[in-house]
């Protein structure tokens, strides 16, 4: 494990043992980004929401996402697995609570046992060595990201809440049927209810992706990403954060922050940055009437 360590990182932000972590070293030449490249995403934890004011004085709601010991645990390649991907692990766990098979899996990678494992499909040029830690500066302020997480569970819900059905009138003789489905089909033909008919049932707890959320702020000391808007799910939930797929190429971020760190940010570059960096909204002043 010590052999994976390439540079001493003083001022540990996470406060946890440094032996198990390694970075993309400066010796390893970072691959060059092409328009077909796809970098890895990260696993973050949704910590809550707050607000900030941008340079125009507009109040912006933001969600705080924290990266907790986010490391590459396994590299999946074309020859062995049939596709190229990185298995990312997040949040260390005490080994006594981890099953033996999983302990072996993490030992092979030389990382601490993790709570959450997620695969991110990448292009071969974006592959990172096992043990590489992903930090908040993997994303730059001003870029767009997609956030995926299970939605908040709503329990057993009726069709009106679950599918937006209209229900029946409140008055004019309607008896005991104000919020029901209504009709579920035709008559003798087809003589059945089709599969997938929208009905009452359990709502929520499914994965949802919110696309093209702007990264408003990066905190290098606490490994925080502030994204504009809301992210699905409850606080302390694991959230998959990726570069926005609908904003490829030059549209992903403002021109002066491009290119994005590829395949991920160098540790020396992170050390040189100030703790917090805030994105500008850009454009023209919204409080000034445009001619």
């Amino acid at each position, binding site marked *: 494990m010590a052999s994976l360590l390439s540079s001493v990182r003083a001022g540990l932000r996470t406060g946890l043992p440094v032996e198990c972590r390694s970075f993309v070293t400066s010796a390893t030449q970072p691959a060059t980004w092409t328009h077909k490249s796809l970098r890895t995403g990260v696993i973050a934890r949704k910590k809550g929401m707050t*607000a900030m004011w941008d340079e125009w004085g507009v109040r912006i709601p933001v969600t705080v996402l924290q990266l907790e010991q986010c490391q590459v645990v396994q590299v999946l390649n074309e020859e062995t697995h049939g596709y190229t991907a990185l298995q990312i692990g997040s949040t260390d766990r005490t080994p006594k609570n981890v099953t033996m098979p999983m302990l072996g899996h993490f030992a092979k990678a030389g990382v601490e046992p993790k709570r959450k494992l997620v695969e991110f499909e990448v292009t071969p040029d974006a592959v990172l060595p096992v043990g590489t830690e992903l930090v908040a500066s993997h994303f730059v302020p001003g870029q767009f990201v997609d956030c995926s997480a299970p939605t908040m569970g709503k329990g057993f819900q009726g069709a009106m809440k679950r599918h937006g059905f209209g229900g029946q009138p409140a008055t004019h003789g309607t008896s005991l049927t104000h919020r029901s489905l209504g009709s579920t089909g035709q008559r003798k033909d087809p003589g059945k209810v089709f599969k997938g008919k929208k009905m009452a049932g359990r709502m929520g707890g499914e994965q949802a992706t919110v696309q093209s959320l702007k990264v408003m702020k990066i905190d290098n000391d*606490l490994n925080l990403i502030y994204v504009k808007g809301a992210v699905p799910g409850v606080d302390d939930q694991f959230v998959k954060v990726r570069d926005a797929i609908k904003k490829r190429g030059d549209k992903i971020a403002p021109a002066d922050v491009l290119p994005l760190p590829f395949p991920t940010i160098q540790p020396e570059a992170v050390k*040189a*940055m*100030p*703790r*917090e960096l805030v*994105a*500008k909204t850009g454009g023209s*002043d919204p409080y000034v009437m445009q001619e």
Partner: protein
Amino acid sequence: MFSFTRTLGARLSGVTARFASTATNAAKPTYKAPASVIVPTQFKPNTKGQGLMQLIAKEEVKRMGADGRSKLFNKSHPDCLRPGDVVLVETLNSMSADKTSTFVGVLIAMDRRGLHSNFTVRNVVLKVGVEMKYMLYSPMIKSVRIMKRGEGFRRAKLFYLRDNPGRAFRLEGLVKQDKAAQAKKAAKSA
């Protein structure tokens, strides 16, 4: 009374304290913020004794309240706002120009919510009741001045003034007095 300066984002020289690398200084990368990125006032995070969200909220209050506007909501401070005070709020029309708008009225509600603290000011303008809600830490607020202390208000929220205003919104005299006082002050200092 305070007035708010719009200069944000001074880069702390304490950034150099984070360079503790054992590598030589020969090819140390430096960071220059691009035009689309702001480097705000930096603080040293202290997570001891409080959760993450409490910490970042406190830091943001410190950053946005650097001009001392937190005292307006601090009960132990003599300059604290109280429901019933007649206040004059000066707001910037936009961040790109220095033009301001002024609103005078009775403070009818104060909500203490940390960074999201806000207050509501009510006045009757041209026979129309107008309420303005201001976020305390908004950069668009230039100054908040107490023109007259409220007397005899025994509630935290004075929403009853919407139906029973009494003489609470007869503020023209106060405004005139205040304008004269301000003009005198300006003439004196000039």
